[in-house]
């Protein structure tokens, strides 16, 4: 089964979670602070096993919560250790204040988030309200579509995060269930070549140790010092766009696979473009193929890097289109789709901005995106383009699902009133 390809890489079936663990292992991390949460658990279980049996020469520590875990991750990175950690959903939110804190410390490490919709009501299945809640924290964000992209993105994330022009922690996102528990063929990069891609971590501004204590993130009242350092974080994040490109070139040279901050699928001649992220973008590509067979000139733009926001690349990919639909797998109550807002802002000043921008909300709590729903998106987007006026936010919710909900409401009423 372990087929070896021409670049001396091993091809095998693995889940997104196992691919994430392999990313950490290939990056030869030193320290893994951990706290388990569904659907991330397989990642830390695997790393625990590898640290236990010596396959990975790293210190594995289970902390008492994600809050402590993220503090430990940032602190360990401040000593100059290469750090990996992972969480999901409620766990990410439990660590929330620390995300901002460690980004301010300018400590590079990689955090994998396995997307799971937030309570309440509680669920285990994916959407992106968890990871997008952290978009203002200062962490870089890379969103993966395939299990292959999970392992590759972790390696790229270390290289970008550790670059002196960036020095920020990075988040790599994969969807719970749809990637985390899904096996597909993954080519594991050769460890020797990974060493070429990812030289040892030697941060000039870090190196905290017991004999040489120093403070990170001390109090700065008055605002001007604070403004300066926060703005430095912004500039560092923006630098990551260029550093990503360099990393992508080198990654392709060594491993033969290319990842850019955005990915266009059949968009060259597309009149209308659907914007998506993460694993369901694969389904979007199938839907594009189906629509093209019926003569619709549609394409798909997948956002891979969400922070920093690749505004220029997005503007370039979407200018001149008749209509653009953004399928947000998230919902900001009282506003709508989060990515729709950012796409709209990116296009506002473009003279060739699309005639219509459409906002769709779908896949909340892991709800499937059906062929029929994609069809509806393409039809409504085309109509909006002809009309020259956008729509939304439109929730992808079908008549059949309404009937199930009405049945539930009917039963609830019956129970309450004693039938």
């Amino acid at each position, binding site marked *: *089964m372990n087929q070896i390809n021409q670049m001396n890489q091993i091809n095998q*079936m693995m889940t997104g979670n196992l691919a994430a663990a392999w990313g950490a292992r290939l990056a030869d991390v030193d320290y893994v602070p951990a706290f388990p949460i*569904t659907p991330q658990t397989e990642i830390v279980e695997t790393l625990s096993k590898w640290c236990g049996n010596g396959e990975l020469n790293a210190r594995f520590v289970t902390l008492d919560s994600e809050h402590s875990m993220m503090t430990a991750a940032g602190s360990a990175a401040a000593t100059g250790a290469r750090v990996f950690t992972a969480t999901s959903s409620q766990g990410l939110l439990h660590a929330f204040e620390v995300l901002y804190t460690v980004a301010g410390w300018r400590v590079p490490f990689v955090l994998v988030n396995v997307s799971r919709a937030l309570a*309440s*009501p509680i669920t*285990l299945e994916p959407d992106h309200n968890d990871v997008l809640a952290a978009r203002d924290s200062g962490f870089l964000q890379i969103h993966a579509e395939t299990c292959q992209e999970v392992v590759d993105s972790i390696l790229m994330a270390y290289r970008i995060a550790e670059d002196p022009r960036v020095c920020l922690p990075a988040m790599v996102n994969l969807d719970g*269930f*749809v990637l985390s*528990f*899904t*096996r*597909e*063929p993954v080519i594991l990069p050769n460890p020797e070549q990974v060493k070429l891609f990812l030289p040892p971590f030697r941060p000039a501004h870090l190196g905290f140790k017991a004999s040489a204590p120093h403070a990170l993130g001390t109090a700065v009242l008055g605002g001007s010092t604070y403004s300066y350092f926060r703005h430095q974080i912004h500039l560092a994040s923006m630098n990551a766009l260029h550093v990503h490109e360099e990393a992508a070139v080198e990654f392709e040279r060594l491993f033969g696979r290319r990842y850019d901050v955005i990915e266009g699928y059949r968009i060259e001649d597309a009149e209308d473009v659907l914007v998506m992220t993460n*694993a*369901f973008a*694969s*389904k979007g*590509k*199938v839907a594009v193929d*189906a629509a093209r067979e*019926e003569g619709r000139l549609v394409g798909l733009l997948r956002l891979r890097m969400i922070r920093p926001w690749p505004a220029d690349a997005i503007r370039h990919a979407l200018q001149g289109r008749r209509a653009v639909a953004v399928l947000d797998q998230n919902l900001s109550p009282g506003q709508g789709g989060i990515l729709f807002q950012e796409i709209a802002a990116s296009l506002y000043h473009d003279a060739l901005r699309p005639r219509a921008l459409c906002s769709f909300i779908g896949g909340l709590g892991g709800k*499937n995106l*059906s*062929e*029929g*729903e994609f*069809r*509806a998106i393409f*039809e409504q987007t085309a109509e909006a383009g002809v009309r020259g006026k956008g729509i939304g936010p*439109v*929730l*992808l*919710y*079908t*008549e*059949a699902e*309404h009937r199930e*909900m009405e049945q*539930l*409401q009917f*039963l*609830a*009423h019956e*129970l*309450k009133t004693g039938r």
Partner: protein
Amino acid sequence: MTAIRFHGRGGQGAKTASRIVGTAAFLEGYQAQDSPIYGAERRGAPVSAFTRIAKEPIRERGLIARPDLVVIADASLIPDPAAHVLEGIDERTAVFVNSSISAELFYAQTSLPGRLTTLDLTEIALQHYGKRGAISALLGAVAGRLVGLRQESIREAIARELADLGLATDVIERNQTVAAQCYEALQTVALDTGSRRPAASAQLRAPTYEPPTRGTASITAGPNSAIRSVSGWRTFRPVLRPDLCNGCWLCFASCPEGAITIKPDGKPAIYYPHCKGCLDCVEVCPTDAMTVERETNVV
């Protein structure tokens, strides 16, 4: 592309079966993808798993709405609406049911629309293993046979997947032997995996605001547990002997489902439609007042 959907109960091995088929296909040089769907629940709960096999890289993801083959590990799942066993089955779908009933009789009883094959895997497992356990290797062998995978790759895939679960070599070899019998007992079916009629555009309807009495998640608590019987999940049921009960309420406190209530006389009562048969109450009972009875088939 060939799309296979497995339906089983937690613990039966549907997920591992989907992996066995995925690995076997991968060994034969195909692209493969396998994934399970399950909730936070436990042994006995409905589980689905999906395997896709193709020559080209696979872009479909998640649940399989229109399967080419459906493998049903437990016939009691068919009438359970929560299991969605019948979804997307039409006259061109191949369907396998783990059942002692012949395909003809089964068809007459259930009028499943698909093309049916049956084999009593549970009985075969009982004969060879002597106890009711996971039948993942057999389900994998059956599915692999029906879609035309080679016996050697199934055999190798069983070894890899069961070793991954930490099973001993002799257990794995026994599974391979019995799986080979199941493989040989069936014929490959001609699957019609050609292009299907495109799905119709979804009829979307925007939800409107409802008052909190209807529009908040609090309403799911009652109907979810009140109307949903989990009796079918049990292999064993706890039975209380009131004469031995000391009224300590430990069973009441430990029941994860709230299926045990306390009567006015202070003694517990089990509400069986909500009892999944986990037997936690039996474990905690200090006076052995909670006894165990084997469930007869509830199909």
